[in-house]
């Protein structure tokens, strides 16, 4: 004990304090989220319902609507942010996100195609179709990357192009079906937690938590990749292979999240940036902070979306983008001249 902490531990201490503070904030906002919505419920009724105490209870609204939505918002927000942070590190570009390898567009096309072209399939299968679509788009990009050993930049470009192809298909379906009346796919396209139940939590929590765990364990490799391809190879890392593995984990995370909450495109872009500003670029710290920021954004957006204009609900995806956009643009403008991370 010298009494003087080294700069490194000081930075770590600061990060630990920050993580604890963020965690507390996420918990507070989640609890606040339980109390807001189209119907005002007093705090004592919420407590009664949660702990099954005597007195007035609101079982459906609290236990079957707001609680599963909160859990899903936390899971999906964390997964999307984590996925975005990994993709930004792998592509080595701060503007990369799950969008960039076509996940959102692929998922959108498959989900919409299933509902509009095969109306016989029950709509409860929509998440599965979406997940498949995301994997298809990202799979194509990764196959090309694998066989042609592309640079990260080129890979992102192909991902963007694949996204545009799927997107044009989505537009074609939207127009030709002339069916803006089918609510579910439209609302799903904007990224919303409307109508989500425990069954959505049931199908998604295991993969999301497992994949998040894998991603956090592998995070040290991202720090190596961030050093640059030559350095990383010099340190004994098979960079193209590691890149594919990390991309695969990120794709799975984003696809599962998109499948249950819809196209929430901007969490994966914005949360890692905000996290990087808070704790710097070391992925060991940055990944968990990204997750917390992502959770915060989605839970906050979902709560506001329910409370702002009842009985109409504003999609969480839209509100999260609105909340995050000013931070994002500010960060981009202030780092515009700097080197890419």
């Amino acid at each position, binding site marked *: 004990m010298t009494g003087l902490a080294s700069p490194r531990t000081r930075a770590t201490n600061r990060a630990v304090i920050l993580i604890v503070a963020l965690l507390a904030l996420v918990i507070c906002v989640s609890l606040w989220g339980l109390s807001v919505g189209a*119907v005002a419920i007093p705090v004592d009724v919420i407590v009664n319902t949660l702990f099954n105490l005597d007195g007035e209870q609101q079982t459906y*609204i609290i236990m079957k609507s707001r609680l599963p939505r909160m859990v899903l918002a936390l899971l999906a927000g964390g997964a999307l942010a984590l996925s975005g942070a990994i993709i930004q590190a792998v592509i080595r570009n701060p503007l990369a996100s799950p969008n960039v390898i076509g996940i959102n567009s692929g998922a959108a096309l498959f989900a919409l195609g299933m509902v509009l072209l095969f109306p016989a399939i029950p709509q409860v299968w929509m998440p599965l179709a979406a997940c498949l679509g995301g994997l298809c788009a990202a799979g194509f990009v990764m196959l090309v990357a694998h066989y042609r050993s592309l640079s990260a930049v080129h890979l992102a470009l192909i991902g963007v192009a694949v996204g545009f192809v799927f997107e044009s298909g989505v537009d074609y379906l939207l127009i030709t079906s002339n069916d803006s009346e089918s609510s579910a796919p439209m609302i799903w396209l904007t990224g*919303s937690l409307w109508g989500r139940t425990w069954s959505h939590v049931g199908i998604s929590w295991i993969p999301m938590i497992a994949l998040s765990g894998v991603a956090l364990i592998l995070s040290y490799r991202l720090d190596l990749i961030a050093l640059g391809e030559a350095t990383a190879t010099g340190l004994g890392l098979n960079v193209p292979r590691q890149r594919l593995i990390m991309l695969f984990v990120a794709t799975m995370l984003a696809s599962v999240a998109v499948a249950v909450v819809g196209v929430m495109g901007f969490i994966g872009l914005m949360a890692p940036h905000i996290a990087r500003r808070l704790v710097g670029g070391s992925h060991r710290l940055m990944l968990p902070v990204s997750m917390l920021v992502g959770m915060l954004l989605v839970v906050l957006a979902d709560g506001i979306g329910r409370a702002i204009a009842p009985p109409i609900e504003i999609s969480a995806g839209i509100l999260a983008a609105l909340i995050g956009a000013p931070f994002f643009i500010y960060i981009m403008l202030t780092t515009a001249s700097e080197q890419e991370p």
Partner: protein
Amino acid sequence: MSIKSLVAGLAGAMVLVAMLPAQAVEITHDLGTTDVPDAPQRIVVLEYSFVDTLAAVGVSPVGIADDDKRDSIIPAYTAIIGDDWTSVGTRKSPSLEIIASLQPDLIIADTSRHEAVYEALSEIAPTISFDSLTGTYEVALEAAKTIAHAVGKDAEMEARLAEHTTKMEAYKAEVGDVSDWSAQFIIDNGEGIFLHSPVSYNGSLLAWFGFKSNMPSPDGHTYEEAIVNTSLEQLSEINPQIILRGKYTDPGLTDSWVGQPLYDNIEAVKNQHVYDVIAHEWSRLRGVLASEVSAANLVDIVKQLKQ
């Protein structure tokens, strides 16, 4: 035992009977079979045509997905169901929290709109679902019968339908033989026009009155076949003798076509047989009462036509 206490006892017994778990009616609908409590009292409806059905049997819903516009429920309905319902939001994405807070014992949903949240709705209350959007006039009457059965108003619906048939036959007699006339209902929203084809609700209603349609009759039964987005050129090919026009904006797109030979030479335009009807009533409302409103419109229109 005094008479007073006897009455009180009887009243208590009656309350007990009322509170017994009500017998359930099994209803088969688009998304399965659901046990609906006998004579449900608190009903939430998520599409206008179900308001129509409940109004036909004199039941007031506690919640309506009225797109947050109370005047979208027309006076023909409010005269029967009153003005006490709670708006539960848009038909596209009704607020589940508000529905739950109304503590309904039956929810009536639209299949194409609410299929994906059927499970969530069922957690709130027994939910039955019918296809209101793409059904014809006949399908709408069938759904009305099923819903009346679900709410325990079979007798009322039978009586109302008998009255409906009498009314409609009277209207039909007034309209007379129109088999020489081709009629077309169109929606004009300022950016485009939408034709309601013979397989749509309005198309089938016009056919019931005996009007011809110059539109090719599609074999399938999907939304894009029922309501077709079209251009002036195609309208000039269909060339109907009567146009019933519902405008959502004024002036509409069709107004900007006045003066173009292609528009002016459509039979209906040339002979001034373009009649404006209320777009909301014709294109969004379907059912027993709505068809009577439309039929009354038609009688007026045919009167003008024959002058």
